[in-house]
């Protein structure tokens, strides 16, 4: 007699339970097997992004070990760098926005290797390559997280990276491509704007070729471009207030427009 799987309700329930459990177990096992590699990859990608952000080296010319070494020896404030709790370089650096009381984590890249036992001097501007502030906000679809690096006199951008986003690939997702990010590497003016103005303006390419605050928007991704402009300006304003309170903003805008 041929087996009929539709006859018994009990069979349907047991079959559904067994199939669900078997597939779920297979996925969990696969996930667990790959978890270590996934964590390593994510950390390495973040380290590459930081090296690229500060322009410490061309990441394509370095192996993984060299990238990790550069992050550990030249960047202060990156808590994920190494496992030594006494290492001063990985101690979190927090600024406080006096207007909102919000804490702003800061990364500082130096021109030379840092001593792991020496306290990090945030005011050593002669040896500081750039500061980086976290930028985050809601993009077209979901949250975008990244870092924006600025010169020690806080006048121009040094670079920008986006670590996490869910923008549409090929459209808003192009914020991670060099064509968009290189504009920040070339140096966009981020001096305090006139009242009501913006630190940076992301708009059509033809709209602001003479404007030192201008960044070309991404074609076909107005929503993402507008969102990035909004949260970068908000985070830059908070950072300027916090930097002034911490004595990092000495008022010498050497690259004022």
């Amino acid at each position: 007699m041929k087996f009929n799987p539709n006859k018994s309700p009990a069979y349907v329930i047991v079959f559904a339970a067994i199939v669900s459990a078997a597939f779920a177990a297979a996925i969990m096992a696969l996930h667990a097997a790959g978890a270590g590699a996934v964590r390593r990859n994510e950390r390495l990608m973040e380290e590459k992004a930081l090296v690229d952000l500060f322009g410490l080296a061309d990441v394509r010319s370095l192996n993984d070990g060299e990238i990790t070494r550069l992050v550990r020896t030249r960047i202060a404030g990156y808590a994920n760098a190494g496992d030594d709790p006494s290492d001063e370089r990985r101690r979190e650096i927090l600024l406080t926005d006096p207007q909102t009381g919000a804490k702003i984590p800061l990364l500082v890249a130096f021109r030379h290797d840092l001593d792991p036992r020496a306290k990090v001097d945030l005011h050593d501007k002669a040896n500081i390559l750039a500061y980086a502030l976290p930028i985050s906000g809601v993009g077209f679809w979901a949250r975008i997280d990244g870092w924006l690096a600025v010169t020690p006199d806080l006048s121009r951008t040094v670079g920008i990276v986006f670590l996490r986003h869910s923008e549409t690939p090929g459209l808003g997702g192009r914020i991670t491509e060099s064509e968009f990010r290189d504009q920040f590497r070339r140096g966009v003016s981020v001096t305090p704007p006139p009242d009501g103005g913006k630190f940076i303006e992301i708009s059509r390419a033809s709209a602001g070729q003479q404007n030192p605050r201008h960044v070309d928007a991404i074609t076909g991704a107005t929503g993402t471009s507008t969102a990035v402009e909004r949260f970068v300006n908000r985070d830059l304003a908070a950072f300027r207030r916090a930097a002034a309170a911490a004595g990092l903003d000495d008022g010498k805008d050497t690259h004022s427009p």
Partner: protein
Amino acid sequence: MADGTNNLTPRKAMLVQLWDENPIFRQVLGICSSLAVTNRLFNTLLMCAGLAWATSMSSLTASLLRNWIPQRVRIMVSVLIIAVYVIVVDIALRVFFAEIHKDIAAYVGLIVTNCIVLGRIEAFASKNKPLASLADGLGAALGYSFMLLAVATVREVLGFGTFCGLPISLGSVTLKDWMAAHNAQWVIMVMPPGAFFVLASMVWIARAIAMRGQSAPEAKGGAA
């Protein structure tokens, strides 16, 4: 029509999906993703590879289990099977191609909702032998892929002036630089509406070719 037909050889099952029953221009399945992912050829390639894996393996698994799956829970089981293979793609990308995963993670999840995958399980794998089902799933994915790659090529070249991210040389300048200098980027090709126009044109061309192929033997037969 191949759907529901038993005893198709694996070769025949694959060939039918590639052209006669092509998912894009015959069955009009998988159109959502074909509009979403085709402005960059490289992204499209990755999406097609992921879909080929998910469709062929899901069809194979569903066919192996077809005599035990109760009708009342068959859709649930099919979606479960598809989800497992899509998660395998996601984990494999995270482990072996982390940089690529960052760019296409949004697409990978979309494979679960691609109607071609569930469509082939329902229409073919649930009634046919495993090897034929595997070939049918792979054929459907390849048929989907060649249409999408054609659309993506047109959109990327006209929209960005590149081919698979690589510059196209026009002698002393690249097409991308020439477009930028002459403000000649065809912006709509980059945006989703551009996919409507290109896809519709491709479907028109493919159907015209298919119809010519059908009418030619008839004309020949009539003359004889």
